[in-house]
């Protein structure tokens, strides 16, 4: 498997996924869309960790362990983020990121 696909190919896929997620997180108006972009970025970080583990150090388990911790953090982040979106929707009646400007000076 490591002979068929070079490590760089996997890294480029992960980088592309990260940049797409970054664009989504920065530019979507819908707060749920922003959260989706963040999830894509976390996924690309996981791809990197698993790829480096597979190609460079397949004997040690550190890479998948960190991937599992990232998945844990992503689950916690999604739960709290969506709860915040629902709370924002209750008090502002909108989920658009640029409509929620209560801290504007």
């Amino acid at each position, binding site marked *: *498997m*490591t002979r*068929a*696909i070079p*490590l*760089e*190919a*996997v*890294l480029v*896929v992960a*980088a*592309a*996924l*990260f*940049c*797409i*997620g*970054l*664009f989504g997180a*920065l*530019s*979507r*108006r819908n707060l*749920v*869309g922003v*959260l*989706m972009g963040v*999830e*894509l970025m976390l*996924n690309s970080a*996981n*791809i990197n960790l*698993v790829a480096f*583990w*597979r190609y*460079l150090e397949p*004997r040690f388990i550190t890479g*998948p*362990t960190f*991937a*599992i*911790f990232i*998945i*844990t953090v*992503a*689950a*916690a*982040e*999604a*739960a*709290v983020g*969506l*709860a915040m*979106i*629902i*709370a924002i929707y*209750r008090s502002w009646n909108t*989920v*658009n990121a*640029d409509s929620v400007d209560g801290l504007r000076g």
Partner: protein
Amino acid sequence: MDLLIQIIFGLLTALIIGAAMMVVTVRNIIHAALWLIASFFGVAALYLLLEAEFIAVVQVLVYIGAISILILFAIMLTRHISGEGERLLTRHWWAAAVVALGLFGAVLLPTLAGNAWGIPLPTGPAGTPEPLSGVEELGRGFVSEFLLHFEVAGVLLTVALIGAIVIAFEERSRRRRVLTLAEEHTLNQRQKASAERAAAAADMAD
């Protein structure tokens, strides 16, 4: 065999990147969530290709089974589903595009140019399986080397659970409070006044 793996990798790459592009560009947010699920499936298949079976299963369970469903629930609870007639992106979306493309270029250049990864060459005759750590080492790591991290992750999940409940249900518990008599009276009056105003507006329209 190598060609087959390369073809599968190409298809998976197209699925992951294409679905991710649809996530950030499609207008209907429900469709974006469904494309997100497709992208997660592609990533899980990529883990299988990289021979990380346990991570692939965890990806399907946690991302597709939990996070996607949570996102769909949040979309349905916030009602404005299609967003027709509204702007999809913020005003400065081109700046975000420049930042993303610049980052992609900045990452791509050293990845492709500086090729000193030090990948260990496969030893032994071709076809012999490489020594690969699996679920057993993962479990051992969680109870020995990564014990503290494991405990901290458990605490983090508990805190996130409690925090999500507190944040999302605060308003509703306040609204469920039993009204006092005076509050009910003012509420009734306000409703009556608004009904009269609506009737007057209908008369004006006639």
